[in-house]
């Protein structure tokens, strides 16, 4: 239902709101990927924006080398993020809980530092600019480009729906169930013969890949990739979205992403210190509505 | 008294009495409501209806620390000792004028390991520590939830002897929920039987011990 409602948006909404909704969808994809880690695997990652940023930069670098096919651009975003996740996951996943959180944060900040300082590759804080919209062979015949009003929005909507369906299937699969078991009682899973490290590692890499896709979409949407995409506040905002939306179901992060984005927008129009209010909202949710927005809906 | 967890009622309309210096056993299968009864008396959960009185004074609904100050001490099922504190710290933290030497003489291993952190004790040793900790509060009424669980047979015998001694010397009242009938009969004057949240039978311990038909009916022994 939500998808259909969203699909109608380009028809009636002003350009600005289409843009906002696009950002919300990209954020939703990012948040869903984090939920695989936080809600299903029980891994509180505070460095997920790193993979988002890596995906954006990979896409940007490829686009600036005149590759403009949609598929390769998205794929390179996913692959680059997955590759970055391999060493980070291999090291961070040796820990759990608060230590894992700190390690992922540290690695993400390292990558941010890399983006700022590796000027020859990333142009530092200037960022990579001038990224064109991608092309899709089928669309050219219909004479539509992704610059058309609402076209890119629909693309993001499609990717978001595919992400939702894939992660939903993954969560309900034996793999997903095993992850849940590891989250609930790792000691017991090991005593039952489960190589828990491997499962968490797989989840970490898959989550990174989806974050990378979101990052690639962001680069294409905005037309640029800058270091702030990897900054820890991005990871933090995604965590807020997942928790506020409801961590144990995949629709939660989607609701949370929209909520956070619109709250940000709404609050910053009126209040300078909007982050304070968002923070207070977050605390209120954690204290009074631990099930998030999804929990609220379920109760009513 | 009626009590439960959220929407489920675990104890329904239960009434029982423990007189001064008396030892009473609460028997019944798992799930009969023994633990809930003890928790409700101690104030760990709030009864939904009914009253709890200590020495004729109403304590229903009071927070557990206030009930504890009236001389009631609960040894809950599952030990729940402070794992990061040493044995000695566990015991002295709870002390309200308690006799450390007495606890050490009852449970020798606690004396030997008095400086070790609680987490290094074995399961049974932790159980001893939990009981010792309760004794350190100089209770007038001691609630014990399956105290013999995980204890070696000899230790169980020692514990039964200690409880009897405490009753004689200090006038301690005891309410003990138990599966181990041997321990229950060694300690108690009277027994209550619980089934599905209700108190279904009351008897003198000696009489119930001989009544194998009743035992089979309520406990499946």
């Amino acid at each position, binding site marked *: 239902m939500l998808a259909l409602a969203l699909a109608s948006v380009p028809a009636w909404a002003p350009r600005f709101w289409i843009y906002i909704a696009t950002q919300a969808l990209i954020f939703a994809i990012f948040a869903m990927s984090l939920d695989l880690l936080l809600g299903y695997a029980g891994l509180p990652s505070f460095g997920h924006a790193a993979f988002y940023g890596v995906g954006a930069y990979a896409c940007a670098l490829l686009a600036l080398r005149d590759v403009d096919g949609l598929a390769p651009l998205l794929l390179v975003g996913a692959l680059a993020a997955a590759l970055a996740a391999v060493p980070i996951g291999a090291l961070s996943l040796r820990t759990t809980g608060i230590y894992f959180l700190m390690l992922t944060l540290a690695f993400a900040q390292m990558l941010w530092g890399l983006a700022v300082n590796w000027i020859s590759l990333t142009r530092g804080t200037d960022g990579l600019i001038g990224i064109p919209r991608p092309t899709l062979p089928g669309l050219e015949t219909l004479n539509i480009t992704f610059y058309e009003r609402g076209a890119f929005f629909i693309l993001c909507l499609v990717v978001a729906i595919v992400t939702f369906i894939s992660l939903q*299937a*993954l969560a*309900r*699969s*034996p*793999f997903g*169930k*095993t992850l*849940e*078991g590891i989250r*609930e*009682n790792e*000691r*017991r*899973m*090991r*005593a*039952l*013969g*489960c*190589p*828990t490290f491997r*499962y968490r590692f797989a989840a970490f890499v898959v989550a990174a890949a989806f974050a990378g896709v979101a990052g690639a979409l962001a680069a294409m949407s905005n037309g640029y990739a800058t270091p702030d995409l990897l900054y820890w506040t991005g990871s933090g905002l995604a965590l807020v979205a997942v928790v506020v939306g409801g961590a144990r179901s995949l629709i939660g992060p989607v609701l949370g992403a929209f909520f956070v984005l619109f709250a940000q927008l709404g609050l910053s129009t009126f209040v300078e210190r909007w982050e304070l209010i968002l923070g207070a909202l977050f605390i209120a949710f954690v204290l009074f509505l631990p099930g998030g927005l999804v929990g609220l809906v379920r109760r009513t | 008294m009626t009590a439960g*967890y959220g929407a489920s009622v675990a104890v329904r309309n239960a009434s029982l009495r423990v007189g001064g210096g008396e030892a009473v056993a609460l028997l*019944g*299968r*798992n*799930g009969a409501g023994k*633990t809930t009864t003890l928790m409700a008396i101690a104030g760990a959960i709030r009864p939904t209806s009914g009253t709890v009185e200590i020495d004729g004074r109403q304590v229903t609904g009071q927070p557990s620390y206030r009930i504890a100050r009236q001389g009631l001490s609960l040894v809950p*099922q*599952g030990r729940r000792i402070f794992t990061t504190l040493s044995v000695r710290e566990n015991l002295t933290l709870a002390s309200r004028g308690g006799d450390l030497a007495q606890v050490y003489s009852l449970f020798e*291993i606690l004396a030997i390991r008095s400086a*070790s952190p609680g987490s*290094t*004790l*074995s*399961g*049974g*040793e932790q*159980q*001893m520590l939990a009981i010792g900790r309760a004794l350190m509060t100089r209770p007038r009424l001691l609630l014990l939830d*399956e105290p013999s*669980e*995980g*204890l*070696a*047979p*000899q*230790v169980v*015998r020692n514990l039964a002897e200690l409880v009897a001694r405490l009753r004689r010397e200090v006038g301690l009242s005891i309410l003990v929920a138990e*599966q181990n009938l041997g321990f229950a009969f060694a300690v108690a004057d009277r027994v209550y039987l619980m089934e599905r949240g209700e108190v279904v039978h009351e008897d003198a311990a000696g009489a119930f011990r001989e009544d194998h038909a009743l035992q089979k009916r309520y*406990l*499946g*022994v």
Partner: protein
Amino acid sequence: MELSVAGLTVRFGALAALNRVDISVATGERRAVIGPNGAGKTTLLNVIAGELQPTEGTVHLGERDATSLPTWRRARLGLGRTFQRSTLFSQLTVVENLALAIRARKRGGWRFWPVGDRALNGEVKRRLEAIGLAHLAGRTTARLGHGERRILEVELALAASPSALLLDEPMAGLSAGERQTTLERLRSLPRDVTVVIVEHDLDAVFALAERITVLDHGVKIADGAAADVRANPRVQEVYLGPI
């Protein structure tokens, strides 16, 4: 699968939780390990299971030297265990708990698409009925009573179809009826499953065990046929009390 430990020593600082312990359990044997509190019984199980590394000595599972293998690999070799404190998947239902154990045994975790597994569901149902918890199938384990948790704890280990099973005080906290159920579940194990049970419930010990090993203060003080150990004066002095 046969189990053995040789020269097993576990030291925590100055304390020797286990001291040069040698135990050998044949395939299909039913062995009880008894002893006073603090004797090192749970420590022994933790070393065999791989959660604890011995200071000295070796652990053999079947023919393999398992001393340096991680827990999950030993479980894959066929070792199962229960924990003294129930170690369940607390936010999951009883059915989901059992399903996880069976799926782990079948190594079915690397499928990324939802699959209905009729055989698995059927087995979950059978086991639920065998332990008498069918009426609690949809309840989360955090809301189960103490005895029910203990029974599920044992069944999770059984669901993994181990060839060697370590049981840590499975009878603790069980009512008479529940003890009966558990005893029957254990008796129904295939004859070639090796069972090592740590217990204080002497009725269960003598009902199940063919041979008994007695530990005291980390040292093995007796090891032999159940009847002989029972009559052993030192064992009576240290643990059993007058018989």
